[in-house]
């Protein structure tokens, strides 16, 4: 562990915490523009967070402590996820603590806690949301794991930092398996981040809501933390996707100056990714809930095919 590594680690986490709401704002802005609406300001998510933190928290009378700790645990998990995703540099002191499999476990841990919190109040919407969230989770999780496995088999490592190190700093090569895995990853990310066509982050229509039904009872600082954690999750997913499929620009170990170059690269990549996400959300309609398993099963199969392609072609 080097001082530079420690610095890069801290910088990555702080950058993620600071930039994640901006990414959400950017996607929302583009979505509005593409749908011919007037867009909210780029900094709108920060204003919302500030407002929510100032507000009093209202908690249901019979809520147990699980309801109150869940937002913090979700936030902590997402902070760690942003810490181990190689956003700026591959020389991360935290990277050995959790590899790709542990990362999937980390997302699952956050999902389990927020679902339990939703069941805790015992309202019809909360339990409905918990059930749907776990449904999407159990379908998306294996697909995500298979995507990460395809990359692991290419690089002979499950450590995210090593995967990116190997993919980014070697002669340019196109891996057919990674191309297929990329499609699967995009589908999984849409589902996991409650995006159209799986879920709509801007709906409170009871028949269709998933993520919103989960967090219906939250208010004040708890809601702020959940929202922040949700944008951190989007940020972490985007960073992992970028690191796996467009890894160029991430700083190698022992090159402190490259980090300075990595920041603008990351911002540019995220900006482009955000526009693409808004575009996907605009040109797709939200699907019925019972089509979601088909959608995610397709992602799962694509990820398995990616694995097979790698084993067959050796690439």
């Amino acid at each position, binding site marked *: 562990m080097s001082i530079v590594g420690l610095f890069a680690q801290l910088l990555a986490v702080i950058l993620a915490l600071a930039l994640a709401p901006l990414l959400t704002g950017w996607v929302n802005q583009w979505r509005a523009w593409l749908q011919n609406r007037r867009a909210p300001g780029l900094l709108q998510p920060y204003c919302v967070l500030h407002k929510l933190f100032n507000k009093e928290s*209202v908690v249901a009378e019979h809520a147990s402590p699980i309801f109150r700790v869940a937002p913090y*645990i979700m936030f902590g*998990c997402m902070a760690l996820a942003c810490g181990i995703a190689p956003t700026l540099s591959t020389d991360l002191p935290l990277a*050995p603590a959790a590899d790709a*499999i542990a990362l999937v476990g980390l997302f699952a841990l956050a999902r389990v806690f927020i679902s339990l919190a939703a069941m805790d*109040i015992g309202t019809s919407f909360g339990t409905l949301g918990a059930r749907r969230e776990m449904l999407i989770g159990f379908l998306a999780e294996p697909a995500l*794991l298979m995507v990460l496995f395809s990359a692991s088999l290419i690089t002979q490592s499950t450590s995210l930092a090593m995967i990116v190190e190997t993919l980014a700093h070697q002669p340019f090569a196109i891996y057919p398996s990674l191309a297929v895995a990329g499609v699967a990853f995009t589908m999984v990310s849409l589902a996991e981040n409650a995006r159209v066509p799986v879920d709509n982050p801007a709906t409170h229509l009871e028949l269709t809501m998933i993520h919103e039904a989960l967090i219906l009872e939250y208010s004040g600082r708890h809601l702020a933390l959940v929202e922040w954690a949700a944008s951190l999750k989007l940020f972490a997913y985007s960073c992992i996707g970028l690191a796996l499929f467009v890894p160029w620009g991430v700083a190698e170990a022992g090159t402190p100056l490259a980090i300075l170059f990595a920041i603008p690269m990351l911002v540019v990549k995220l900006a482009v990714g955000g526009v693409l996400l808004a575009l996907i959300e605009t040109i797709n309609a939200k699907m019925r809930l019972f089509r979601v398993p088909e959608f995610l099963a397709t992602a799962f199969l694509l990820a398995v095919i990616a694995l097979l392609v790698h084993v*067959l072609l050796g690439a």
Partner: protein
Amino acid sequence: MLVLDWILIVVAGWLALGFAGIAALRNTAFVARVLFPAGAVLAAALAGLAAAALAGTPETAVLALGLPDLPFHLRLDGLSAFFLLVIGATSVGISVFAAGYFRHGEGTPPGLMCLEYHLFLASMAMVVLADDAYAFMVMWETMALSSFFLVTANHRVPAIREAGFLYLLIAHIGAIGILLCFGVLQANTGDYTFANMRAQSLSPLWASAAFLLATLGFGAKAGILPLHVWLPEAHPAAPSPVSALMSAVMLKTAIYGLLRVSFDLLGAQQWWWGVLLLAVGLATALYGVVFSAVQTDMKRLLAYSSIENIGLLFVGIGLGVLFNAYGMKALSALALTAALYHVLAHAFFKSLLFLATGSVLHSTGERSLGKLGGLMRRMPWVAWLSLVGVLASSGLPPFSGFVSEWLLLQSFLFTTGLPDSFLNMMVPVLAAGIALVAALAGYTMVKFFGVIFLGQPREPKLADAHPASPLERAGLVWLGAGCVLLGLFPVAAIGLIDPVTQLLVGGGIAETVRANGWLLLSPSSPERASYSPLVFLLVVSVAVLLAVVLVRKFYHGRLRRAPAWDCGYPAQTARMQDSAEGFGQPIRQIFEPFFRMRRELPSPFDAKPHYRVTIEDHFWHWLYLPVARLTAGIARGVGRLQQGRIAIYLLYSFVTLMVLLLVVKS
């Protein structure tokens, strides 16, 4: 004195406690306050002795029990010591819990229960110590019979008697398989000691026959497809400490037997054995978890979850056999380590969950998930400790289940390099199945915990639920601590497993793991794969604490309690929560072909609408009922011979004699 002698003293102590129970047949206070805690102390001693014997040289003894020229041969080596450790460490918690659990009013008197319980423990310990087929089979049958009587403790309920007989039947089908397997292994020498079996080198055909018989025999005890049907019947029927003991420990003796036969007694292995175990294991795991997700009885749910975990163990052993058959010692050791780690982890979290259901059952009198809810406020200890078990069982970091899942997935990822290109291709793909099973396990466990402990009570009587007694809590705390420690200190736990893999395949991963430091779990090199639960926990906790402190500092910590909002919907009742059926509905829909499902839907004009869905196991209709019909048919046919008149029977004798004379003449 040898460690083995001390272990025998512990076993004898258990038996003495059992007979003391007979002496005080109806003295519940004495049995509960003295005998069961004493049993827990002996269990702790057994765990300590086993840990001491793990790395030691094998010890043998001959007990002059049994038939005159057939004494019991006993042997304590790394493999038996590891399983003795599992038996001891888990039963400490279960015995302490049982001390607070067994009360008046259940079928079998407490003293008899105490005898059966300790006989069960002693026979399991002796099964893993046995060093000849005779001792093994005697102990195996003692184990089956004592557990049968424990399962049917409440024998006045017909359903419980039926469950017990089903269990006994399948246990004996398994026992026949094991007996025949030993018959093949001794290779016509007439010497049934394990030492002789090790010395024999069977032809590939006979070795495969022995392996298949062992898989059938031990698989029946472990509950692999399609011999799993007794688990969901017997586990709910038994009192909770017994279900915990059966699921956490007894199923593991079957795993022990499979490892003993396939690695130790059979010398050379064939690659297709591994593939067979892999396929059977994966099918069992998937089947178990899908059924587990739709159950509405909390103990049946856990029983199916045990089937799933046994499947995962078979997958790990299958990978171990596959690698070992190709001479890849290090990879085989990794896969076996994953399986053995899961043995430990499952023993702790599953007994914790079964015992928690026992507390809930005692406190509320309900086993059906549809009539529970909101118990977190009434039984906080049980709820929080169950949460630990649930998280470990879902395979979430930083708890114990995740470590074994992680190791298993790592051993799948390391497969590239098998000499057979088809296997090379298929095996990593099977990891997808493991990932699916693990994710579904999380779904099931959220349902289990959420429906029992969270939400609002679904029945008015739940308001009277009383918290668990101090001894029950103490037992749960021990098991919960096991889940946490196994999750946080994997490097130390792998040190316990290493002697076993050294014994089985002549390699281990502990040296590599230790070389990477105690903080970091890394089976080859940190560049390749690593996981550190302590750092993981530390970072998440620091982030959580920082969030709490900073929010308080920069904003405020004000909180107001108010009725639940629920989108402003005014009239809410506890009946409007999602039920266990509702939570299982997506699984029923997605995995429809798995179930034999009957739905009765209400018509729009019903004054009292009823919605009924019955879910059955296909295997009953595909396998068991046809076999039962066939047996009944044959029995009826044979029954025609029985006329009840002496003249007819004399005629039979006469005809038989004539036929025999003809045969002899020609």
